[in-house]
């Protein structure tokens, strides 16, 4: 795993000392809230509905056991004994006290972590495929690229005050698990005709109030030109991105208003200048970063051939384990979505179990997924029964990955100051409504994603079923979108019609799923495929009961 240099460690430590002084000055009255707010936000400290919230960066979602254990320690020492994993592969603590935050940041610095650039109009934490370095379909591990971007973008003086926040995602696989087309920049590793690795560069994707699927601005960018090209995109955006209207300030609006071809021409012009100025990425830096991502020494024992007799374990393997690039290994997704639980919340005790399992069975690696689950990326298949047994003891063995109860939900109005309605209780109720795992497996792959406001942290636009919570004349109201897709075939979902009240939304989702079960051609046709075959109408009929179902005969 990549470890930070002394320079990084000193830098983070100095930032904590600086913030400690700022907190002291806020408390003794030398700083007003107006003066202090931008300083705390630069250190990831938000004020939410009931308390402060500290957002901690988990670079490209990768953690080791020691770091996870430290997050557990922070949660029980300064918070309420749990943490919330987010759709940005980060972790948030919901109840820190202002005067404790410098100590929390010091505890993070002890394990090479921080909360820098988790807020503000800067380049945010770079996200990546949560199966990076393990996926059987991978061209290359995307994390060295993500780390290179992290180093380049951290405190980059030119990009500290962009028109708006800026998110970059990287995938090394043709199957896009990092939602790259919904980011300001999405990088997809590809090979050119000569077999050399490079990137397909996508810009202008994003969700929020104006959802857009990103557009390919460069079919093939050689790896060595990455930083010069990113600088070109950021320079063009920094100069031309709108600053007059916060809601039109993301690069997706610039792409939309300027047109891709014109913007591409401007980017290429700056790129050729930057290329001369910056040259290629320093091979020494690349080598140093690559060395931090050397694959583990694989355990060469063959995978066990005996059939799995335990039904629970068999379900777990079928649902939560996928192919690893080493055939004797599996990638284990640990569901942080127990039936009726809060999506993405793990207790300190659970975090410690995950840390222990990573150290003993997964070459000391963990990943946080944007779907708010935790991944043990490298588990030898012979060890899966032992891992499963320990997960079960910790309440972490729910075999529901990719199923109806594996729901993304933002914190919503239970925590977030921006939210217009609650998300978490909707997720909890849907999960309880479909509690039976056999029934969930019968329904098959289905992604429900819930946001508690138009900013779409819950990715509702790319949910097969998306739910958006709004405030309609002082009452919580939930709009449904269907047919969204966050993968390489990214699509924005279509709105079905009028929204539903808080106590009507779960029955509405139940009707949608009943309709799907009636309409599908067979169990092998997943919800999204049925929707694509039939379109909105039969589902609208199920929701609103206004038309006969398409297959009524």
């Amino acid at each position: 795993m990549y470890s930070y240099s002394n320079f990084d460690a000193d830098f983070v430590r100095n930032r904590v000392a600086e913030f400690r002084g700022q907190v002291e000055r806020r408390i003794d009255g030398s700083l007003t809230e107006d003066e202090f707010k931008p300083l705390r936000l630069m250190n990831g400290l938000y004020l939410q509905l009931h308390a402060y919230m500290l957002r901690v960066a988990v670079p490209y979602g990768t953690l080791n056991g020691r770091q996870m254990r430290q997050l557990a320690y922070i949660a029980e020492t300064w918070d309420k004994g749990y943490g919330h994993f987010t759709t940005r592969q980060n972790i948030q603590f919901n109840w820190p006290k202002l005067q404790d935050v410098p100590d929390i940041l010091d505890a993070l610095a002890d394990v090479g972590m921080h909360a820098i650039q988790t807020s503000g109009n800067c380049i945010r934490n770079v996200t990546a495929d949560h199966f990076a370095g393990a996926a059987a379909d991978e061209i290359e591990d995307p994390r060295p690229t993500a780390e290179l971007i992290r180093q380049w973008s951290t405190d980059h003086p030119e990009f500290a005050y962009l028109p708006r926040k800026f998110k970059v995602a990287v995938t090394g696989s043709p199957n896009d698990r990092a939602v790259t087309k919904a980011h300001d920049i999405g990088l997809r590793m590809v090979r050119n005709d000569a077999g050399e690795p490079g990137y397909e560069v996508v810009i202008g994707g994003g969700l929020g109030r104006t959802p857009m699927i990103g557009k390919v601005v460069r079919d093939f960018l050689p790896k060595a030109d990455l930083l010069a090209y990113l600088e070109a995109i950021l320079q063009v955006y920094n100069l031309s991105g709108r600053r007059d209207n916060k809601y039109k300030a993301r690069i997706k609006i610039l792409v939309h208003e300027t047109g891709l071809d014109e913007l591409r021409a401007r980017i290429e012009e700056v790129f050729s200048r930057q290329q001369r100025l910056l040259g290629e990425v320093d091979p020494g830096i690349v080598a140093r970063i690559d060395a931090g991502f050397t694959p583990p020494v694989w355990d060469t024992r063959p995978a066990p051939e005996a059939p799995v007799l335990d039904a629970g374990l068999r379900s777990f393997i079928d649902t939560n384990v996928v192919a690893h690039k080493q055939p004797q290994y599996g990638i284990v997704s640990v569901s942080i979505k127990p039936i009726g639980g809060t999506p993405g919340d793990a207790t300190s005790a659970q975090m410690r179990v995950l840390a222990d399992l990573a150290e003993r069975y997964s070459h000391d690696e963990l990943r946080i997924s944007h779907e708010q689950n935790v991944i043990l990326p490298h588990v030898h298949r012979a060890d899966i029964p032992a891992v499963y047994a320990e997960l079960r003891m910790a309440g972490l063995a729910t075999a529901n990955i990719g199923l109806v109860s594996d729901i993304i939900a933002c914190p919503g109005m239970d925590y977030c100051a921006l939210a217009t309605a609650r998300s978490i209780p909707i997720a909890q109720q849907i999960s309880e409504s479909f509690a039976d795992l056999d029934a969930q497996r019968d329904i098959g792959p289905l992604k429900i994603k819930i946001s508690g406001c138009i900013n779409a942290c819950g990715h509702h636009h790319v949910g097969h079923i998306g739910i958006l919570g709004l405030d309609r004349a002082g009452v919580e109201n939930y709009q449904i979108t269907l047919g969204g897709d966050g993968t390489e075939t990214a699509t924005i979902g279509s709105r079905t019609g009028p929204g539903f009240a808080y106590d009507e939304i779960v029955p509405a989702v139940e009707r949608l799923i009943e309709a799907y079960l009636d309409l599908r051609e067979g169990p092998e046709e997943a919800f999204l495929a049925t929707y694509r075959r039939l379109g909105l109408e039969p589902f609208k009929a199920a929701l609103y009961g206004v038309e006969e179902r398409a297959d009524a005969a």
Partner: protein
Amino acid sequence: MARAFLPKVATANDLFEGDVIYFTDEGTWTRQLAAAAVAMTPEAAEDLLAQAAKLQGEVVGAYLADVRVEDGVPVPDHFREAFRTRGPSNYFHGKQAEVA
């Protein structure tokens, strides 16, 4: 048509804990909405916020929130303000746990 004036309380978050607080008739802050000073006119509301704003050193983000007065006690008009008097709905944390 302009909405009829609703009574107001001045509310904010505590500087240290971030907990929801309300401004009282005594010029202090309370954790309980029931103990909050209620402004019954737009002028009184403006005055209430001005007084509360003088104590910005101890609190964050003071603003006026609509309430209805029931049995002489202010109750939130909007669901967001109702949640602020309790805490989150997924765990028994926040105000609801402290009051119990």
